[in-house]
């Protein structure tokens, strides 16, 4: 903030956070735990994202994977390009620039008392984990919790220990599948939609939360339609190219909606007249 800005904050200026833990979840996904330099408030709600930057390299939107019930913030970053490659090379103690949190949230309030079904494809588990953990931390507030996870191959599975812990729990159901079979895998094989019939009876009265790669949505939504899930009960978490995160740069627009402000979490029924969405 500076004198000439009428006391207004520069919305593009990141604040520094320090990496306090880092570990590879698989060959391409890095998990980092961050603490804000100088402490201070940082309030977010599951479903939101932050703009992460390394000065000199660039900036990108990244979903918050931790729950606000935790200390600090956790992100999972896939190595796909200029910025993410550099972040992958960072160590504990290195700093990331953070802006946010931005965007819409999962229906943590309106879903209270209802059953939750999470449908996660690949890295789609990352933002969903925020709500899953939040719901587990407020276990009494929600009904049944079901997590469906599809991963391309065994080697790419995320949060394996955490999944194992969830699997142990009596108060939630975790179903996993991988696209291609593997020697060390005796679970389900097939894409994530193949898990949907297994929980079909559950679906119509649940809040369904969907996040995964672009092509996944079409098929999951078809399966959910078949299962007669009302569109108001489905929430999709969408990704788009994004430069500013604050509704100016125009990149993330899907028809009239801005993923950075109207999303990334959308109620599916609101997308009926948004042909570019799915």
């Amino acid at each position, binding site marked *: 903030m500076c004198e000439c800005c009428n006391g207004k904050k520069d919305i*593009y200026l990141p604040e520094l956070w320090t990496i306090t833990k880092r570990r590879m979840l698989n060959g391409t996904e890095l998990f980092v735990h961050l603490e804000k330099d100088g402490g201070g408030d940082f309030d977010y709600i599951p479903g939101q994202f932050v703009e992460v930057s390394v000065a000199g390299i660039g900036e990108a939107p990244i979903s918050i994977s931790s729950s606000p019930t935790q200390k600090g913030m956790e992100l999972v970053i896939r190595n796909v390009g200029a910025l993410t490659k550099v972040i992958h090379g960072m160590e504990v103690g*290195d700093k990331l620039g953070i802006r946010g949190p931005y965007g819409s949230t999962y229906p943590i309030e309106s879903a209270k008392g209802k059953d939750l079904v999470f449908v996660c494809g690949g890295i789609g588990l990352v933002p969903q984990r925020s709500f899953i953990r939040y719901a587990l931390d407020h276990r009494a507030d929600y009904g049944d919790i079901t997590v469906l996870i599809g991963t391309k191959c065994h080697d790419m599975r995320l949060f394996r220990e955490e999944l194992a812990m969830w699997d142990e729990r009596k108060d939630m159901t975790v179903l996993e599948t991988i696209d291609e079979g593997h020697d060390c895998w005796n679970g389900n094989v097939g894409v994530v939609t193949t898990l949907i019939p297994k929980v079909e009876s559950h679906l119509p009265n649940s809040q369904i939360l969907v996040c995964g790669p*672009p092509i996944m949505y079409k098929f999951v939504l078809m399966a959910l339609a078949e299962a007669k899930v009302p569109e108001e009960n489905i929430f999709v978490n969408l990704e788009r190219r994004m430069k500013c995160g604050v509704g*100016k740069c125009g990149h993330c627009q899907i028809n009239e909606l801005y993923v950075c402000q109207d999303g990334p979490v959308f109620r599916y029924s609101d997308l009926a007249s948004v042909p570019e969405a799915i």
Partner: protein
Amino acid sequence: MSVSTVTKEQFKSFVAALVNSDQKVVGVQAKDDKFAFGELTDADALRLDYDVTILPPKKYVLPQKETLMNFEVAGAAKTVCPDEKMVLLGVHPYDMVAINQMDELFSQGEYDTHYMNRRDNITIIVCDVVTPSENVFASSMNTATCDSGYDILLTDIGDRFVVEAATEKGEALVKTINGAKEAAAADTDKRKAVQEKNIASLNKHTLECKPSDLPDLLEKAYDHPVWEEKAKLCYSCGSCNQVCPTCYCFDVQDEVNWDLKTGSRCRSWDGCLLSNFATVAGNHNFRENRADRFRHRLYRKGKYVPGKIDGQIACVGCGRCISACTSKIANPVEIYNTLMEKA
């Protein structure tokens, strides 16, 4: 605020004095066979009789490239505040309307200090159109005249200018014009005549509906064949975006200095027609078809942006995209009219 008249000579002296002061003055000047806004160093070079400028004056509120912050590589960053004051001389009403829209877009929701500071530092002198450009259709868009945003409104009534101060800043400037006389009723009548003429005649293309009908029209036109038809010829060159006074999409890139320790984060113009505007990691392009991108621009102008600014249509009828498109397919009026035929 005051309404006065000045002779053209008096006005030129005023511009000359302004140019000679330490104030930065930007005005319309000839550029080969066309016109462009540029820093004015000679009052004689000012051309208030221009038809249209190649680029709109948006380049002063949202420059082609601007530094948002300076940083230490992988470290902290510091805002760069635009603080240059300038007088922007000779903005046409339709361009003023476009700036007003951008003001709204950059201040609503998250307040963009970079844009807004620039804007606050500019004193705008609008001048009513003297020479209509070959593709202007401001009359169709109700932007042949404008009633806000400017500090001074200037109208050429033949031998003199009518000068209206609309803000304190404008009033202070008008006070420095030697020989300004209070406008007589006859002068303001003449001004009215000029403006009425413009309202009727800045119309080289005629939109066959009210601008306010466009959102509804577009509501039903998503799958109209015109998108494919036109976009067949689209080069995805983004010329239509670049020259448009209401296009404001941008890209952000980091640049590092030679010390490799410091650098700056810059934003620059982008365009939704460019083929990778919506490409994300894994090379997934969310708007891969030319026709989808082509349609997106016309929807932004006629429906999406209006949705954010109280229904104001984000095409001000300057006609620049019509001239700038090498494929001659970008004419919004032609497209909107085609959509109506089917409807």
